[in-house]
Each structure stands twice: as C-alpha cells, then as structure tokens.
C-alpha cells in the first residue's frame, strides 16, 4: 500500500519538479553570463502560456503530428515514474529495468523524429536525421553503461543497483568511474545540451532537437517542452541513483528516512543543475560531425568499463 502511495506521489513529484530544475539551469547560466535572468519559476509560466494558445497544424501534416506530442510526453513521464528518486520502494519500480528505460526514451525519440518528418519541411527532416544519428551512437553507449553496471551489481534494475551500492559491496571501482564518465556524456547528448546541441538556438546549421519541433505550437509544443524538462530531471535522477545513491530510502523505512531521501535527492539534483549550467557556459557547441567522435568516445569508455572489471580481477 505504502509503495503504491509513494509511486503516485513520485509520479506527480517528477512532473512538478522538472520545470524548476530547468529554471535553475537557466538562472545559473544567466548569472554566469552577467545577466539577471528570469525567475526559476519562468518555465512554469511558459508552459501555462503555451497551453492557453491555440495550436497551428500544417495542412500537409497527418494525424501522427497531433498524436506524437502526447506519446512523447507520456513515454518520458513513464520512464521518469519508474526511475527511483527518493525511495526505491515504489510499486512500479520492478515494472521496467534500465534496458526498458532506454527503450521508453527510444520510443519518445522515435515519435519526435517521425513528427519532424511529418509536415514535410526541410528543417524537420534535418532535425530528425541528426537526432537519430546522435541516438544511434548515444543509445548503445548507454546500454553498455548498463552492461558494465549490471556486471558490477548483478542486476539491471535501478532499485536493486542502488541497494547493492548502498550495502557496501562496491568499493572504489575504475569501471564505475569510466561508466559515470560515459553516462554523463550520453546524458548531455540525449538532452540536447551544449556541446552536442544548443537548446536555445534557432540557427539552422546548429539545430538538432529544436529543428524537429519547429512546426509545433500551442499545447503540442507545451507537451514537447515539458517532455524535455522531465527528461533532463530523469537523467539527473539516473546519475544520482546509480552512481551516488546515498540517502535514498529503502523498503520498510520510516517517514524520517523518506524525508531525508527527498532532501538528499533535491540536493543532488540541484547541484547537478548548477554544474550543468556552469559547464554550458564554459563550453562551445561542437560541429555536427564531431558528435560521432564525442559519443564514440562514450561508447568506448563504457566498453572499457566492462572489460576493466575482468582485467582488474585478473591482476
């Protein structure tokens, strides 16, 4: 029963917190660039405003164009619902492991890319083509990260991984470090952050994600923006749950532990948001074809992480 309540609360929590995290990232960037910046609540206002506007749909678009935002948003939200944040004791956590999580994000990407092609514009196709290109290397890298972590912890379930790390079976591992580096690189690519993609650009040569959703407006755009925010929060939760699970409440824990879990998660995510804002300010966007090197590097790091496990065992 309590796991059901936690599940419902968590489902709402990830949705409610996601715009705030985006707001923190934007505010950090603004301050570092010497601007005052909008309030951290601005993303909520943006979403509300978009919901109120009527949606303009291109003549040539099919029904897929109107359904895709809902499918994308629900897949990302579902993935975020499954990923433990403050407690591992949630009804839905065993419903999908990390492989399924990757696939759910893949579903969201699949429909975003199709929506980009639907209207029949050059920009939309450009965005879809590049997005699938980035994912073609990013998704394998993430699967290999999961592979190495599952060799380390003997499970692919995020809750069990966190429990395994918390129980002190894992010391300082080279593999975990390599996997973390790869995971961060993938997270940057999947969320379309600098240096892979610039979420604020509307310059045709540099757009990836924005080019796909260029034709969208009104509530459809609101859903796609919300999906992007939830996805960012989800990746921060993944990194904090798998690599820094300290503070997360286990099954049968008291109210105090759960509250402490909430505080620890908020702290970790807030810290990650500030770090993201800092690095985005420091880095420049890279050329599209350099992305292959960047993500290929992530893939190799993750592969090395699996192989290092046995090398270190043999030595």
């Amino acid at each position, binding site marked *: 029963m309590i796991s059901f309540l936690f599940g419902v609360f968590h489902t709402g929590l990830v949705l409610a917190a996601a715009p705030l995290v985006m707001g923190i990232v934007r505010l950090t960037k603004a301050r570092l660039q010497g601007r005052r910046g909008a309030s951290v609540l601005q993303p909520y206002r943006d979403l509300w405003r978009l919901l*109120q506007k009527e949606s303009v749909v291109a003549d040539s678009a099919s029904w897929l164009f109107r359904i895709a935002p*809902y499918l994308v948003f629900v897949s990302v939200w579902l993935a975020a619902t499954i990923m433990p944040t403050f407690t591992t004791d949630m009804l839905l956590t065993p419903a999908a492991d990390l492989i399924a999580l990757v696939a759910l994000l893949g579903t969201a990407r699949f429909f975003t890319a199709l929506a980009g092609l639907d209207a029949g514009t050059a920009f939309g196709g450009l965005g*879809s083509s590049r997005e699938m290109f980035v994912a*073609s290397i990013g998704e*394998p890298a993430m699967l*290999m990260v999961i592979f190495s972590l599952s060799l380390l912890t003997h499970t692919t379930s995020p809750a069990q991984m966190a429990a395994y790390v918390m129980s002190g079976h894992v010391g300082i591992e080279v593999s975990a470090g390599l996997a973390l580096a790869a995971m961060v690189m993938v997270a940057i690519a999947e969320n379309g952050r600098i240096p892979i993609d610039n979420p604020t650009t509307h310059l045709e040569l540099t757009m990836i994600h924005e080019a796909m959703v260029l034709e969208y407006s009104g509530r459809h755009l609101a859903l796609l923006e919300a999906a992007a925010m939830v996805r960012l929060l989800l990746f921060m939760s993944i990194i904090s749950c798998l690599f820094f699970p300290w503070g997360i409440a286990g099954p049968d824990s008291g109210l105090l532990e759960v509250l402490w879990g909430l505080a620890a998660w908020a702290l970790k995510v807030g810290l990650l948001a500030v770090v993201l804002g800092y690095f985005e300010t420091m880095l420049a966007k890279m050329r599209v074809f350099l992305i292959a090197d960047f993500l290929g590097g992530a893939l190799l790091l993750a592969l090395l992480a699996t192989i290092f496990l046995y090398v270190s065992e043999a030595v």
Partner: protein
Amino acid sequence: MIIGSALAGLLLLGLCAILLHRLTRVHELIYAGCLVATVVLVGDGLWHIVQSGHEEVPSVVLPFGLPWLHAHFRLDSLSAFFLVAINFPAALASLFGIGYGGHVPHPGRVTPLFPLFLFGMNGVLIADDAFVFLVSWEFMSLSSWLLVLSDHTNEEARKAAMVYLVMAVFGTFCLLPAFGLLAGSGGAYTFAAMRAAHLPALAGSLVVLLALLGTGSKAGLVPLHVWLPLAHPAAPSHVSALMSGVMTKVAIYGLIRILYDLRGDVGWQWGFVLMVVGAVSAAMGVLYALMQRDLKTLLAYSTVENVGIIFIALGLALAFRDHGELALSALSLVAALYHVVNHALFKTLLFLGAGAILQATGERNLDRLGGLLNRMPITGFTFLIGACAISALPPLNGFVSEWLVFQSLFKGPTVAHWAMRFGVPVVGVAMALAAAFAATCFVRAFGIAFLGRPRTPEARHAREVPLSMQVAMAVPAFFCLCLGVFPVTVTSGIATAVEPLVRVKLPAAMLGWPWLSPVSLTAGSYSATMVLLTGAALMVTTLLVVHHFGTRKIRRFPLWDCGHPEDIVNAQYSADSFAQPLRRVFGSVVFRAREEVEMPPPGEMVPARFSVTMIDPVWTGLYLRIVRIVDAIADRVNVLQFLTVRRYLLMMFLTLVLLLLVVAVRQQ
C-alpha cells in the same frame, strides 16, 4: 494425420493451379485453399504444444522414398513450435494473396508455386530422416527460386535468381556431407539413429561447421547474405514476406535441429563462433539497410540483422549449456525462439505493407513516395506498428525478445573463459548498435514513405488497398501488440518446446503472472502489462489536464518552415539525405562511401549534381574475387575440351591406375 492431409492438400492445390490456370478467379481460390491449409497446420501445432508436453513422440513411417529407407516423419515439440511460427505468417501471406495474387506481373507463374513452396517448408519441419529433410529443403529452395524468377522478363530478377540458385546449391552442398558425417559409415539416415551415434571430435566439429554454412546461407548470415537483398525483393511481395519472414526461420530450425538435437554435445567454442557471426550480421545487416533506397531491399537487409540477433542468442545458449549454466541456456534459447516468432510476424507485416504500397503506387523507391499516411490510413497504421515493433519499442513484441537477448547477453561473462569475458561486451556493442540503427532505419523508412508531402503524382493519387489485404496486415499488427503485452504466456510456451533440448525448463514467472524476470528475482524484471496500464493512466491524465486547463482549438494553416516555406516537394528530406550523417560516419569506412558534388561555374545555367558511390565490401572483396578465381581455373581447364580421342583414352587409363593405387594403399 491432420498434418499429412493438410500437406497433401497443398500439393494438390499446386497441381490444380497448373491445370486450371485458364479459369477466372482461380488465384483467389488457390490462395484461399492455402489459407485453410496453413490455418489447419497452425491449429495442429498449437494443439500439439498444449497437449503433449514432452512425452516421447513416435516416428511415422510412410512407404515411399528410397528402396532401403522409408520416409520418416515426426512432430516433436520443437517441430510443433516452428509449425506454428511458420504457418501463421504463411496464412497471412495467403490471405494477402487473395487480393494481391491476381495483380502481380505473371500471376500464372506465381500461384501454382506458392502452395508448393509452403509444402516444402512444412516438409522440412516434420522430417525425421536426412533424406526427407534434404528433399523437402530442395523443394523449398527450388520452388522459391522459381518464384523469384516469375518476373522472368526483368533483367534484375534473372540476375537475382542466378545468385540465389548458386547460394542455394552451395547450402545444400554443405548440408549433404553434414548429414553424411552424422550418419557415419553405417549409413543410418534416420534422425533417431543419428542422435544415438557417437561422433569423433573432428567429424563432430566438421558437422557443426557444415551445418552453420548450409543453414547460414539460407538464413542470410554475413557473408553468405548476398542473395537475400537481391532475391527477396524480386519476388512478388507476399512471396517476399514468406522468403524473408518464414524461410529464414526454416533455416534456423535446421540449425537448431542439428546443433542441439542430432549432435548432442557442441563445445562452447562453437557458441562463441555463432555469437560473433551473429553480431557481425546484426551490425552489418542494419547498416546496409540504412543505406537502401528501395523499400523491399531495405526490409531484406533488415532480415539479415534480425537473423544475426537470433544467432547471438543461439550462440549464447550453446556456450551456457557447455558450461553447465542450464537455466541461462534455456533463457537464451527462449530469447532466440521468441525473436523467431516476432521477426516472422513483423517482417511479414512490413513486406505485406510494401506490397500494398507497390500495388497502390507502383513504386518501391522511397524517394518517390511520401504522404501516404493520409491516403492509405490502414496500411500506414499497420506499417507503423510493424516499424515500432521491429525497432524494439515497448510495449510491442520486438522489445520483449530483444530485452531477453540483452538479459542473457549481460550474463554472458559468467562463462569463465577469457574469450567469452572479453568477447561478450564487444558482441554487446554490436547488438546495441544494431538495435539503435534499426530504430533509425525504420524512422527513415516510415517517415519518408508515409509522412511529409507526396514526392510524385503516383504517391499523390495512391488509394487504400482492398479489404482482404488490410485484414492480412491488421492481424499481425494486432499480434505484435499481444505478444508484447503478454510475454509470460509466450515464454512458458516456448520453454515447454525447448525443454527437451536444454534439459531444464525456464522458470516462467517468479514475481507472478505479468512479470518477466527470467534470471532471478532481483536481476531485473519487465512487465509489459504494467507499463501499458500505467502508460494508459498517464495518457488519460495528460489528456484531461491539457484539455481542461488549455484550449482545444486547432488551426489548419500552410507550412511555416521557419518563415520561408518551399513549394518544391523535393526540398523535403529524402531517404538519401536522411541517412547522410550515418553514411559519412560509418559508410565511409565500411562501404567506402564517396559523396561528389559537381558545381557548375557561376553564370552557367546547368543544375548542380550530387552523387554517392558505395562499394559493397562483401560482394567486391569476396564474391567477385571467387568468381575471378573460378574463371581463371576454367580458362586453364578449358584446354581439356579440345583433345584428341587418343589423349582422352590415355587420361582414362591414368585415372584408372591412380584409383587402383589408392585402393592398394588403403588395403595395406
């Protein structure tokens, strides 16, 4: 008994079609007959799986065949499983054929061979001796070869048929000695005798190698895949569906029969080989598919990828079994067979979809399609389901089997040998790349063909296909969803079928009915039902919230396109431009892809030209080289054709002396 009459019915249908080809509506009748026969076979296979469990099934001996060897037939649980996996897509192809069969280029050359092709494939499944197996195998090969050749006026179809014939002969040429070695010097050609026989190590390894080559060439393993992308598209679409979705599975059945059943103890090294070959096929196959412009060729290459995934799982099962990890071996084998069913389903669906497009527009070239979703809603929707399923998106069936393969792959390093420990992660990379590329490939295929604005008048005037064809596509789409949402039912069925092969039964559901948790309670689980239900709940919430707090207004308006819309439909992304980033990154290495841009000097009014050249490394590097060597040898040997009688007699004499010498040496 029922199977026998169904098969006899198929044979009869083939003969009827030849005799009655002048009648009107004969095509509809023949395909309807095929539909009935295949549905009966599916029902019988299912009944057998549910009923029999694993008691010993006796072999049925029929008094025909060789004088010293009557024909043996037997339906054990593995055959019954494949009977269902093969005849269900075949039934769909038959149903599609009722509406489609009369419209192919030379229907009179297709209709009689269709039931014969089905007959051959089913014969392979129930054969219980090498003779029946090989005869049925050849029946299958030759009838499908004739089907490829049905459009015989087409130069490309003739070339495809030629390559296919050579590869089919090669395959049988390998299987023949494999069975010979299994039978031993005693010549015991029944499968029961082969099972009991004990092979020396060298002969045993040779059997595995020959079986791998023989069945691999039929299944489309790289580098034996070259005929697949030529022959599958050349046949009429419902036959392509059978060749790609079904015949490759018969080849996989052959491999499982030989490696797991007839030849009991195969070493883990062969599992490793299977896994690596599978990984290469998976990654290469989908990379080829990504570069194709022709929808049917793309689908054929994607078959190479999926066969690769199945081989990865089969190899893992062998390696686990040899190391005593029987539960993991069962898991891998269940994963492989689950993917067999799934691929048979969605590949049939996608090929039938390609056939529907072909009938509606007369086009297979992606760059000449576009905007079909608005014009062919049912075909478009079912094709979308197939594309999602083959891209392994939850909650559809493709994801479940890939999830199972990944779960067993992640357990691969438990086999404590350095080759497996370092090999499995590399195979994992190939498999993960294949999965991601597949999604890209099908975003491209569906997006370019069905979305956007129509690129040609043919696409603009496309009409939805007749009802029987729509049903033939809707049924597999529905089953793609069912097999994805109720995975535990399927895995426990398959686990029963493979139990005799791996000697353990996969623990079906540890966490209760809807939870798939094959390895252990804590090692990761997936519940499609829960995912679907939660997803539905979240979807309802989203809809309520958005429509309650937001406006529901929609305005239809011409394209915005960032402020400067183009009226030219060719300004849309095409199939080639969509693949360009991946072509640059991977194609320039694997296919030596070159892009050339010819820019006219300023002031000249000629169009700029862009061209891409790609070289198939397997075709030019391997096959053309072999052809050159064969040609050179033939040139040398050619002299022998123009000798005098005296010289021929001399050669005969020398041969005789040589043979006598051999006999003399052997008798020492």
